């Protein structure tokens, strides 16, 4: 208790608060610039963590991360250009809502959901890190393979059109993800001798191409006289520019479910916030009272991915504080900063010198509050910035998108790729192929492929399949759950056939 109080007093000083404010403001700005990922923004602060006390430097980095996840959703909503990959799922409902003049409402939903998700996972981190980490550490390649396979199966239901177009899109995504060095042997695959392709196709040029550039191509089809119009009109009705208390309340179940999904995803290193956002979006739609509103500007469709991707941020620290294992790049940067400060993350830190860790916890909660307040100021600014005629705004998007694709690896090749994907995305939309499924196939395939192939290697090192499964209790539980779920679905279908009940949402 003494340590907790000391932690609070450490966190509540001028330097720490100034660090949080600076981190949030810079994070929101950098996050809204496409191509600068949250982790890259945090990396900029590493040198400062050398000079400041840990309860100043580390919260500053965490604040930067939180701010950038909120910031990245703003261009996703207004310009269909996610600032970071984590905001890709936010485009699906955020942009349609903005086009109906309710950009203000969309951004307020994002802000509320982001801060909710952040606070949720921070609280889980503070009170339940040890327990959650003890379960998560039992997840090896075989458990990941089942989880990701399951996610891929359920995400296919995001598409409601022709089945063969859906299969074609997801297969294309899987195939594109196979480009690059083979994850097991290290041999180049489908690179045609091009060293730029050794590391595979970058997610950022792909996302920006499919989401933003394809939209620019679509605008080119519009009659010239429309180009003088404003790209986005903002309704002046007060109701369209805020999130009412009633709406907030109605979002609560979605927010809780999505934050839980994000926290669980974050506790498992390697899955990441983009995956969490898509899963939460799909879950929100599956359980929605009015699923037909999804894709047209549903508030639930905006809140779900935002709560989930922010929740991943705090949860990524769970394996770090429990075992010293960073959950993602941002957590790895924080690990480096902690080590330089002489704090070795893990149970030992709580035993030997817990005050700085508690101070960091307090600062994280404070950062959520600051994120909300600064976000309230950022929203009107963002509105002003996009209130331009189309003929000015879309060329600006083109420049911004090119810079974003270039910035990730400093590669012009990525810019070329982005334009190719833009063209493909435009054609896909024209012929009603779901590009979202292509993106999902692309995002999930590397984890799926690697974990399946690792599992096969591990099975070979064990006494066959049976011994392997028997040695992994978590795998047995997951397989059991999968079997029960399959049985339920099959039974439902059989009942439907027998009694001719109306088909529910597939």
């Amino acid at each position, binding site marked *: 208790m003494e340590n907790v109080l000391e932690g609070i007093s450490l966190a509540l000083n*001028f330097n720490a608060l100034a660090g949080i404010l600076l981190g949030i403001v810079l994070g929101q700005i950098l996050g809204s610039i496409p191509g600068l990922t949250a982790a890259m923004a945090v*990396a900029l602060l*590493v040198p400062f963590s050398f000079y400041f006390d840990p309860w100043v430097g580390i919260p500053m980095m965490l604040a930067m991360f939180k701010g950038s996840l909120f910031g990245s959703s703003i261009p996703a909503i207004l310009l269909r250009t996610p600032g970071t990959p984590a905001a890709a799922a936010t485009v699906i409902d955020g942009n349609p809502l903005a086009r109906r003049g309710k950009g203000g409402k969309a951004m307020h939903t994002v802000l509320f959901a982001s801060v909710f998700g952040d606070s949720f996972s921070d609280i889980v981190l503070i009170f339940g890190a040890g327990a959650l980490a003890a379960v998560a550490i039992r997840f090896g390649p075989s458990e990941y393979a089942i989880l990701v396979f399951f996610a891929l199966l359920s995400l296919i239901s995001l598409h409601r059109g022709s089945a063969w177009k859906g299969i074609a899109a997801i297969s294309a995504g899987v195939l594109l993800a196979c480009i690059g060095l083979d994850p097991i042997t290290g041999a180049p695959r489908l690179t045609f001798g091009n060293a730029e392709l*050794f590391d595979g196709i970058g997610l950022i040029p792909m996302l920006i191409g499919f989401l933003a550039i394809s939209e620019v191509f679509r605008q080119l089809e519009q009659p010239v006289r429309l180009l003088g119009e404003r790209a986005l009109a903002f309704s002046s009705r007060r109701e369209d520019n805020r999130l009412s208390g009633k709406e907030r309340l109605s979002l609560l179940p979605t927010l809780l479910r999505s934050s839980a999904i994000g926290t669980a995803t974050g506790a498992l290193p390697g899955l990441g916030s983009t995956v969490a956002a898509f899963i939460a979006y799909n879950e929100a739609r599956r359980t929605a009272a009015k699923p037909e509103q999804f894709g047209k500007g549903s508030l639930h469709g905006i809140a779900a991915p935002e709560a989930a991707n922010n929740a991943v941020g705090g949860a990524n620290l769970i394996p770090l504080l429990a075992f010293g*294992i960073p959950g993602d790049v941002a957590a790895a940067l924080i690990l480096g900063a902690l080590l*330089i400060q002489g704090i070795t993350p893990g149970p030992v830190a709580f035993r030997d010198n817990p005050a700085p860790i508690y101070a960091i916890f307090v600062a994280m909660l404070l950062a959520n509050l600051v994120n909300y307040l600064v976000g309230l100021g950022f929203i009107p600014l963002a509105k002003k910035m996009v209130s331009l005629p189309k003929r000015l705004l879309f060329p600006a998007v083109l420049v911004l998108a090119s810079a974003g694709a270039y910035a990730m690896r400093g590669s012009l090749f990525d810019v070329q790729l982005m334009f190719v994907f833009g063209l493909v995305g435009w054609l896909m939309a024209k012929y009603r192929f779901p590009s979202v499924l292509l993106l999902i196939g692309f995002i999930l395939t590397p984890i799926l492929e690697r974990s399946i192939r690792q599992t096969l290697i*591990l099975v070979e090192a064990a006494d066959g399949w049976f011994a392997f499964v028997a040695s992994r209790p978590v795998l047995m539980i997951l397989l059991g759950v999968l079997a029960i779920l399959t049985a339920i679905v099959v039974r439902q279908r059989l009942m439907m056939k027998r009694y001719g009940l109306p088909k529910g949402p597939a």
Partner: protein
Amino acid sequence: MKRRGLLRWTLAVLAVTGALLPAGCAREGGSGEYPSKPVTIVVPYAPGGGGDTFTRAVAAQAADILGVKVFVENRTGGGGTIGVGSVARAAADGYTLAFVSTSPVVMAPNFLDVPYDPLEDFTYLARFVVSVHPVLVGGESPFDSFPAVLEFARANPGRLRWSTAGINGAPHVATLAAFRQEGVEATFVPMQGSSEVLAGLLGGTIDLGVISDYSGALAAGDVRVLAEIGPEPIPGLPAVPTYEQLGYPLAPAIFFGLAGPAELPRDVVARWDDAIRTITASAAFSDIAERLNGNVAYLGHEEFERHVRADIAAARRTLRTLGSGD
């Protein structure tokens, strides 16, 4: 106290603002002494690992010494070969440098078609650290020594599961060579990055891991150290045998250093060599090195270049006799 705090903040805000301006904006007249504009150090890995954190520490101190901004840019891909390769093709003016380490320079060219020749395409400026890469087992592992591991693996071919942070990196190749010499057949489970390996050790997915980022788990007793792959013992753990002591064919001292494109001007080389010597001699840097599990090991330009050449030749020779690589 209060005033110092304010000064630090002013510096912090200025530095962040500076870091956000593109490097090109600060271009000043081309003439005059090096450096006259910001320098970029390319780290060929994602931010956050040991090499990246060390480079950021070096860059922060070098900026003070050289009086210009020193940016760190992460250009990832191909196990470090893409970032390093991009610097090989950069202008030889000293404004684009690379963080180099054993894996992309000494090991990768034996396995991959890399976009550079490690002997011809670089000027090796100076080495600052030799990194520690211990052989680890989980805290509850039945193995209490490296010989015990070997004994189990010999009695049960293919049953020992092990991994490293990257395929064909120095820890992978050196351990593979050690196993060959011992007549051990083990199962290598390819993983990406040291955090996956560490999680695998703790979760019981693998039995043995060779990684450099492990401090938290070691302090908590979640892992134990059985051996070190380099030639030097681990600081604080003198009883742990090294691959050199065990007589294995490859015991690479995994170096962290800076390099630039071939034929860098003399004054550039001298400036950086001096800067690295000053940095590595500082108490602040030794503190950082201790906390990040590295041994401060300054090596000047000429000696570093000789060292790299010797490492490359030794690795090629050994790999040829082992029948891997080309």
